[in-house]
């Protein structure tokens, strides 16, 4: 158990290091996410009230779209120089590899959210200061759920030629409830939760994350086995 944890941490650390040194994915995915937010503004603006109302939904769409790139990239980078073969030859449980990859994806999603949230606030004129704690909680749970699904599916598609096309088509329907819950929770947090439903949505996000993490850990070896 502790060995699995060490493997997972080492794998996530390796991905983080590679990213810190190369800085390829971070820059491009953050830029892409911010661009999506900007273009949503063009599509729905210039009415400021309308933008503010749609802000939670637009934020999460930007996070999900950019997240597909970020998490997909974590597996694509393994295909270079036969790294994936090496990885799958390690005599460790596949669930440990999954945990490491999902952890790296989770951190990437957190960075994405932490940057896109203020960008959204700036572009659409939304006040974040009063709701930072619940927003952080929504972000953490949403990032965990998304990373859980996308990591499993990225491993599944990474060896396919059409992976860039297929990954979003597979992940997006699965994360539909996550998107819904995250948007409602974000709107609740920003609007002071007048209906008292924030807790229910956070619970749904947590349940989604736990379920998908268990499913991912159990099936990752079949997704990776090629």
């Amino acid at each position, binding site marked *: 158990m502790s060995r699995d944890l060490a493997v997972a941490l080492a794998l996530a650390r390796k991905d983080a290091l590679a990213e810190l040194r190369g800085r390829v994915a971070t820059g491009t995915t953050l830029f892409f996410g911010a661009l999506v937010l900007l273009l949503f503004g063009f599509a729905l603006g210039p009415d400021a009230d309308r933008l503010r109302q749609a802000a939670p939904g637009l934020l999460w769409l930007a996070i999900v779209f950019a997240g597909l790139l970020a998490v997909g990239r974590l597996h694509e980078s393994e295909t270079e120089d036969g790294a994936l073969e090496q990885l799958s030859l390690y005599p460790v449980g596949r669930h440990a590899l999954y945990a490491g990859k999902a952890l790296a994806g989770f951190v990437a999603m957190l960075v994405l959210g932490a940057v896109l949230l203020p960008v959204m606030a700036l572009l659409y004129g939304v006040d974040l200061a009063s709701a930072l704690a619940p927003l952080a909680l929504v972000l953490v749970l949403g990032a965990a759920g998304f990373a859980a699904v996308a990591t499993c599916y990225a491993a599944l598609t990474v060896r396919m030629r059409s992976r860039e096309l297929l990954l979003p088509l*597979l992940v997006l329907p699965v994360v*539909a409830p996550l998107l819904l*819950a995250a948007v*409602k929770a974000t709107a609740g947090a920003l609007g002071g939760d007048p209906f008292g*439903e924030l807790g229910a*949505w956070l619970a749904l996000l947590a349940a989604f994350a736990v379920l998908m993490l268990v499913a991912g850990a159990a*099936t990752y070896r*079949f997704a990776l*086995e*090629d």
Partner: protein
Amino acid sequence: MKTRILGWLALVAIAAATLNSLVGVPADLNQGDAQRIMYVHVPSAWLAYLSFGVTALGGIGWLWRRDPRFDWAALAGAEIGVLFTAFTLWAGAMWGRPVWGTFYQWEDPRILSTTVLLALYAGYLLLRRLTDDPIRRANRAAVVGIVAALDIPIVHFSVEWWRGLHQGPTIGSPERIFNPAAPDLFVRALLSMLAAFTLAWLYLMIRRYQLAALHARTDEAARRGSLAAARAAAEPGVPDVVPARPVEPAS
């Protein structure tokens, strides 16, 4: 032969149930003849869920026993499930237009979850199409089929809450129509259609499974290069240019 009898039986049953639901029971007092769509709408939805259940179980069976027959059943379930899901949505839209005044209703959670269901399994079929190797295909499909099945209840709850936390229950939801308080006549018409549809489903599932088995056999034959060998045998003068490849070891 037995399958053919089942097919004819299903056809006769559907014809009888259709006749009954069209002329055997009176039109609904409020919705008129449009309500009759419910007799095919509800059975389709039920069979869609049944099919995806088969897909999930087939996926688990494949990963557990490594027997391709589980994969064939999973494929049959997904394809026929997508068919019935699409039909459910289509019939719902045809009913919604005269009764609700709109084809697609964002207020109704069931429509939303059914649409997500369609997208989930369309992705499953697409993934299968894009993978040639049968073992990889079965592996990948099994993972997606299992994750999709786990997702269904979450999708269901999320859209229920989405509407439910704000507003009262949706008007004209299938549950109300299917209310036990409805006259026996209507319930009986629905149940007979349900039985007829399930027979047809069983027939389609068996046929799709058989087709998958045949596909696997021809693929396997091509893989072994026995086609080339057969060609060489038919024309003794032509040398066998395609050497028989050994069967790939199962990974």
